[in-house]
């Protein structure tokens, strides 16, 4: 019998092998492993894990069903709270959410809630189990802008309540960051993302791709001419930031968004797809978040030697521990406490290196993290032919600038009530990264859920 203080280990692809392919790293649990892990849960009466989950899944209940081998019941329990369990089970930072609150985690390792959720969702998909649609339609129309995690969740919840929901998506494929941002090796596109989007569609949600709100049609037109009674804005934070250092426009410098979009959405890594991607030999990824890890591990799989360049230390890396661990296993090299000051360009306009300066940590700044300070005279050159900037993103001002009466704050984020998603404009709700700035998939889902409730109350209250 396994050690009850430890998680049942999860099978993974060998680091040396996976560094050369885009197949999923983690294989997930099988039935026996899932039931064994579920048996570790002590089913707390006042379960802390539930409060750690932004969409409050009834975790002890679904785990109880897994323990007994009732996987379909487990799936229906999760579905009451989450529209995208196969995705969340894979990409949520469980260590700081549900698993971070697990009582088992005090003395040993917490229950592997994420891996169990993933197992249940994968099992349901493989066995053709779908979420239950609304018994009847209520005759009200709602428009959802953006098909990322916030939009899909909001649309799914409203559809279950009987609303006729249309999602408008600017790109040619639904999913938002799930499709263009998070790579195949963490989140398989056809198997998982497309399947979960099909589940949302099976609830009756219509998805119109290739429609850019603010350009193809405005929010005011949706409300006044197209017959929608409410609009949810889940347009995310997709505008990349650059550093503003010399050489940044040289050939071979990309935003992580561009690099990942080419590879994930346009499938540039595949021979049979037309979109090209630059195959660097020595690649520097600037930044320390999940997106930086994704870009670095993608470049590695495309055949490069890869460095992460981050201005703070290991402890401050904002990426998930699991992803940093995976990146190191695969051979990504970390240049910590180090910041670029200039990108060096050759005569043909291509990157030939990056000048960096070493940093040390000073006093904590407004964000509570210790502020990195340059060490004078510590400049050095890193020989690279490709630089990927992964410094974060901010909301695209397209929607806010074309919608009359929609307030934004200093950071271009839409101002919305946390409980209901209500914005400064009647009938218009918002949530996810468009409101908070770049955050996590599950927080966006939580905001989508809250707004669905807010929209339901708004429309029902009008009568």
């Amino acid at each position, binding site marked *: 019998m396994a050690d009850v203080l430890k998680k049942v280990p999860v099978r993974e692809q060998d680091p040396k092998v996976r560094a050369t392919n885009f197949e999923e790293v983690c294989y997930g649990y099988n039935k026996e492993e899932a039931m064994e892990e579920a048996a570790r849960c002590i089913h707390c009466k006042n379960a802390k894990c539930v409060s750690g989950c932004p969409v409050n899944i009834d975790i002890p209940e679904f785990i109880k069903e897994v323990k007994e081998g009732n996987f379909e019941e487990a799936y229906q329990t999760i579905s009451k709270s989450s529209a995208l369990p196969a995705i969340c089970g894979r990409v949520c930072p469980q260590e700081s959410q549900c698993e971070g609150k697990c009582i088992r985690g005090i003395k040993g390792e917490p229950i592997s809630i994420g891996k169990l959720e993933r197992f249940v969702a994968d099992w349901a998909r493989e066995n053709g189990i779908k979420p239950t649609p609304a018994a009847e339609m209520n005759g009200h129309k709602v428009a959802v802008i953006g098909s990322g995690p916030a939009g899909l969740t909001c649309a799914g919840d409203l559809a279950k309540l009987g609303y006729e929901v249309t999602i408008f998506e600017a*790109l040619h494929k639904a999913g938002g960051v799930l499709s263009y941002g998070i790579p195949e090796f963490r989140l398989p596109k056809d198997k998982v993302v497309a399947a979960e989007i099909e589940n949302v569609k099976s609830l009756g949600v219509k998805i119109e791709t290739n429609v850019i709100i603010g350009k193809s049609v405005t929010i005011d037109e949706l409300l006044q001419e197209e017959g929608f009674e409410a609009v949810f804005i889940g347009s995310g934070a997709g505008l*990349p930031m650059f550093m503003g250092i010399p050489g940044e*426009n040289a050939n071979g410098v990309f*935003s992580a968004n*561009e690099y990942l*979009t080419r590879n994930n959405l*346009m499938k540039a890594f595949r021979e049979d797809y037309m979109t090209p991607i630059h195959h660097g030999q020595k690649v520097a990824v600037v930044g320390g978040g999940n997106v930086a890890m994704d870009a670095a591990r993608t470049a590695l799989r495309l055949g490069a030697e890869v460095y992460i360049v981050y201005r703070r230390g290991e402890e401050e890396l904002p990426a998930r521990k699991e992803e940093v661990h995976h990146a190191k296993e695969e051979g990504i090299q970390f240049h910590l406490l180090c910041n670029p000051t200039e990108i060096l360009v050759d005569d043909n306009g291509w990157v030939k290196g990056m000048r960096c300066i070493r940093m040390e940590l000073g006093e904590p700044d407004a964000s509570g993290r210790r502020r990195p300070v340059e060490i004078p005279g510590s400049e050095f050159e890193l020989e690279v032919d490709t630089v990927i900037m992964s410094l974060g993103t901010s909301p*695209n001002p*397209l929607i806010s600038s074309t919608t009359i009466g929609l307030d934004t704050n200093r950071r271009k984020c839409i101002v919305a009530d946390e409980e209901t998603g209500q914005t400064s404009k009647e009938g218009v709700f918002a949530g996810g990264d468009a409101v908070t700035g770049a955050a996590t998939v599950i927080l966006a889902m939580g905001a989508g859920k809250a707004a669905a409730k807010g929209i339901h109350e708004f429309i029902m209250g009008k009568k």
Partner: protein
Amino acid sequence: MYKILNADKLAANIYRMVVEAPWVAKHCQPGQFIIAKMNEEGERIPLTICDYDREAGIITIVFQPVGASTMEMAELQTGDAFEDFVGPLGQPSEFVHEDLEELKKKRILFVAGGVGTAPVYPQVKWLHERGIQADAIIGAKTKDLVILEDEFKAVCNLYVTTDDGSYQRKGMVTQAIKDLTAEGKQYDICVAIGPMIMMKFVCQLTKELGIPTIVSMNPIMVDGTGMCGACRLNVGGEVKFACVDGPEFDGHLVDFDLAMERQKMYKTEEGRALLKLQEGDTHHGGCGHCGGDK
């Protein structure tokens, strides 16, 4: 799917397609563009809107095959369809927002080069519909490559110039600008659209002549909505994204040399894709990159 209602050839290597795209047709303005994608494996290709009909819900695009994707696109026939077709993207031409009475006082010169003739058309047409007759220069390499001549004649004062002198005036568009101004023509603004090298030389000249000049930039794009920065340019020392801030900019502020370097970024990849397309199953490593017969 976005149906192609009509596909025809305007010149040896220039194709025109009328596409059913109601969302785009509803709101597009002169100066804006679309992104088309042929099929699942296809690239997203940015193309400037050449004409539109709001009631019919249709958009006309004109393009010149330059790589594997556009060559494949040229094969599409009337009745075929694009899997994806999205827009309108980018900012409309500035004059769309200007006071009409003020605009009427302006003497406007359009300079079109090659396939760049197409995006100039909706601009002169828009002005003509509001009673403003602009001058336009169409430049082409040779007689057979002059496109949309009749369409232009109907909506502006047209001057055609061919590099080899096989039709109308002889020489580059810059020569025509010099000639027209030497003949006593005066302009308050110039709008130049064509290959980057042409726009660069037009801007050098108009700077000397003191004519403010707008150019429409055509850098590499992916999404076209501002989320990646592939299309970034240096305009007056600032980084701009052509897809959301442009594509039209003050030509006297654009760093053309940088823009032209960036345009070449995928040259080898493009060449490889082109060879693969042309040689098909007979491709045995002639591109020098693919490692030969796989």
